[in-house]
């Protein structure tokens, strides 16, 4: 099913014409209204009229998170403050918070893109949506909320927290769609098991999970345990929020980016040079239609690749591969690049462990050491030391084999790794403290 058939299946030639027209108008707008961009464009000697083809986007300056911080709070807005109807802000977990604003039209665009995402996931107006994304300054909650209302579905604005109550609501209201981070879904599942509720028996049929990188193994695990179809959703507050890209349920293979509103590029995270189609690199997004906070070539720090091969669902919009990691999440362990998602895949492929893990990196005598704490699964818990030692050895061996690094694997008691109601904290890097 498609929400906006004409746009979502637009021939690429027409889509690119639309993108170019919007890009040109965007550059004109930011040049005229945002002193920061006027200065940057002038420094590069680029005038709005120089943008004649889509590939000219590479002559535009990048925008980094730091630029948003430097212009905190409203410095990059392209419209008078009175035209801004909503403010969101990033969590500021990695530094000073960034602020984003939305005009009335921006909020409407966002709602329609989120409704489009729901339909891609297989939802419709008859669904009940349990929304466990946090409400408030974080874009997840309200983004999903407006999208569900736009679609005409029934939204249950649960937000994060009160896990026991959430389990009760799952049972009482019988939602058919659930939206949360994948790690919180794992936590909810455990809470349901503890409460003696089998989610598989409930009407739940679709899970829309995002806001943190997760793996194919985690998807299979959630699908099997919950008896649902799970799709990956992507968004970031600087660009808009959830709904920037979503997997279609037909293929479950890459997330269609709403290319009528966002122009994606893949660059080399070190040199900043554009990479050829299909390469893995950092995702850069130019917002084509945003009014309040338009951004040129925003560096997301998310690593992925783009796939322009037509999808079996009929959508012509490019697919981005699930996020493989964040350039700032990448651990360099004795010179080897390691992403938490790689470790997650290995752990989930090993029977006997729960999908909760934490990576602790330390420096001992000038050598990096990595310890991976993994919860043992109650089901597989044996009264034999040997079995558990073999499990540790198996994970350790796979990590050495696939990543080329030696890690100490430490089994810990179930439910001892801290649970998160939002994004999971997988890495504790103690090297610089």
């Amino acid at each position, binding site marked *: 099913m498609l929400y906006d058939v004409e746009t979502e299946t637009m021939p690429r030639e027409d889509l690119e014409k639309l993108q170019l027209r919007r890009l040109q108008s965007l550059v004109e707008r930011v040049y005229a209204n945002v002193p920061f961009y006027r200065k940057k464009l002038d420094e590069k000697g680029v005038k709005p009229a120089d943008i004649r083809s889509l590939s000219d986007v590479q002559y535009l300056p990048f925008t980094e998170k730091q630029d948003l911080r430097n212009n905190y709070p409203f410095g990059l807005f392209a419209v008078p403050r009175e035209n801004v109807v909503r403010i969101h802000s990033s969590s500021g977990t990695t530094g000073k918070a960034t602020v984003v604003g939305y005009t009335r039209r921006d909020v409407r665009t966002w709602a329609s893109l989120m409704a489009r995402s729901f339909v891609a996931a297989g939802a419709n107006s008859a669904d009940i949506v349990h929304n466990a994304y946090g409400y408030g300054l974080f874009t997840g909650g309200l983004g999903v909320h407006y999208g569900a209302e736009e679609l005409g579905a029934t939204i249950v604005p649960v937000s994060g927290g009160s896990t026991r109550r959430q389990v009760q609501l799952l049972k009482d209201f019988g939602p058919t769609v659930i939206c949360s981070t994948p790690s919180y879904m794992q936590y909810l599942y455990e809470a349901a098991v503890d409460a003696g509720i089998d989610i598989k028996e409930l009407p739940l049929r679709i899970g829309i999970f995002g806001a943190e990188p997760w793996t194919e193994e985690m998807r299979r695990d959630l699908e099997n345990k919950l008896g649902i179809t799970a799709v990956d959703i992507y968004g970031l507050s600087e660009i808009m929020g959830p709904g920037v890209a979503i997997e279609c349920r037909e293929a479950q293979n890459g997330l269609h980016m709403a290319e009528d509103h966002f122009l994606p590029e893949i660059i080399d995270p070190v040199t900043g040079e554009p990479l050829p189609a299909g390469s893995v690199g950092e995702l850069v997004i130019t917002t084509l239609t945003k009014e309040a906070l338009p951004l040129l070539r925003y560096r997301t720090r998310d690593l992925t690749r783009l796939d322009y091969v037509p999808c079996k669902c009929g959508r012509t919009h490019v697919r981005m591969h699930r996020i493989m990691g964040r350039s700032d999440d990448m651990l360099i362990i004795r010179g080897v690049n390691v992403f938490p998602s790689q470790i997650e895949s290995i752990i989930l492929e090993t029977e006997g462990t729960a999908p909760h893990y934490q990576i602790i990196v330390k420096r001992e005598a000038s050598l990096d050491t990595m310890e991976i704490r993994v919860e*043992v699964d109650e089901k597989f*818990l044996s*009264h*034999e030391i040997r079995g*558990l030692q073999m499990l540790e050895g198996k994970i350790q061996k796979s990590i050495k084999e696939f990543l080329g690094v030696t890690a100490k694997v430490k*089994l810990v*008691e179930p*439910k001892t790794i801290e649970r998160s109601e939002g994004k999971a904290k997988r890495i504790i890097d103690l090297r610089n403290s």
Partner: protein
Amino acid sequence: MKSEQISIFLENRAGRLAEVTRVLSENKVNIRALSLADTSDFGILRLIVDDFEKAKTVLKDNGFTVGRTTVVAAEVADQPGGLHAILGMLSEHGVNVEYMYAFVQQSGKNAVMIFRFDRTDQAIEILQKNNIKIIPGDQLYKM
């Protein structure tokens, strides 16, 4: 003929074992026999208690990971060669002892050992054929 043993997975952290004994003591569960197997990171505590169900429930409620294992309690003659006689008849039939530990008994001329076998039913059969006294669970917990 079999007895129930509780197995608890424990991380090697200061005070973790004391947590188990605190929970059991507060709930008036008496420990009859125990053994602890450990590595540098974690251990498995095996317990025979006077009230298996209660122990399991209160430990679970306190966040412990608890498993159930079937073991066999056998009387061993308290004299040289007493244990050897039992191990000898089992090894003859290829039954493997995965682990064993002693049961504390206040009086009586025989010692009681708790055995975990790889083939429990066959082991019981062999012991009975050789007139080794097996103490059934319900008696063991009350001894």
